[in-house]
């Protein structure tokens, strides 16, 4: 599974990386990310997740070849 992170998340993770561990949904993905960097918990709680051009929630079944986008709170403008 491919992971892309943006903005302040790059202070905690590589901008793009391959996640070897299994994550079947966003709750499991969040746990795998905390395994990598335990300090990102509060930030991850405020993030949204997306695949392609759509947001996903925990009901979405992640697939092995998905690229998951992790989206911190917006600060445009």
């Amino acid at each position, binding site marked *: 599974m491919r992971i892309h992170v943006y*903005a302040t998340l790059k202070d905690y993770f590589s901008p793009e990386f391959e996640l070897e561990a299994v994550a079947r949904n966003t709750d499991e993905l969040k746990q795998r990310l905390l395994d990598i960097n335990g300090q990102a918990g509060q930030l991850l709680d405020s993030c949204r997740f997306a*695949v392609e*051009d*759509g947001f*996903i929630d925990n009901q979405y079944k992640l697939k092995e070849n998905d690229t998951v*986008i992790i*989206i911190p709170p917006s600060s*445009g*403008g």
Partner: protein
Amino acid sequence: MIRSSLSPPQVEVSQPSLGVDYVISAGPLDLVGLLSHAHHPAAGAVVLFSGEVRDHNKGREVAYLEYETYRPLAVKMIHEILAEAREKWGLRTAIAQHRIGRLSIGESAVVVITAAAHRREAYEANQHIIHRIKHEVPIWKCEYFSDGTHQWGNNCNC
């Protein structure tokens, strides 16, 4: 599961002559060129908002900004925001463009242009559009201060 349909997005392109991807720009925003698309014979009121880079923020001197985006989702969301505003306020024109990359003090980071028969609708829709773009669309600001430090924005300060 709430993932929406695959790209290309099926939302209305607010200004066909500008193309779908015009809403995110890696180069300086052309306010004048965009404004020239806004005039409409049935619109009595045109409102343009430009969000520009301030030299100070929360007491600290800003050297420059950088914006980044997750483009596929940002483009889709901005078009949806524009289409909804167009419908809700009966707009004749709804244009928005956000810049990404490095910006100097005084440069425009985002522009929103609305045109409607009457001015109340043009103002209201314009404020609504910029509010949603700032708070919902995956675009992020990083402030670089004169003291060499930097900070990712996590809430709006304009």
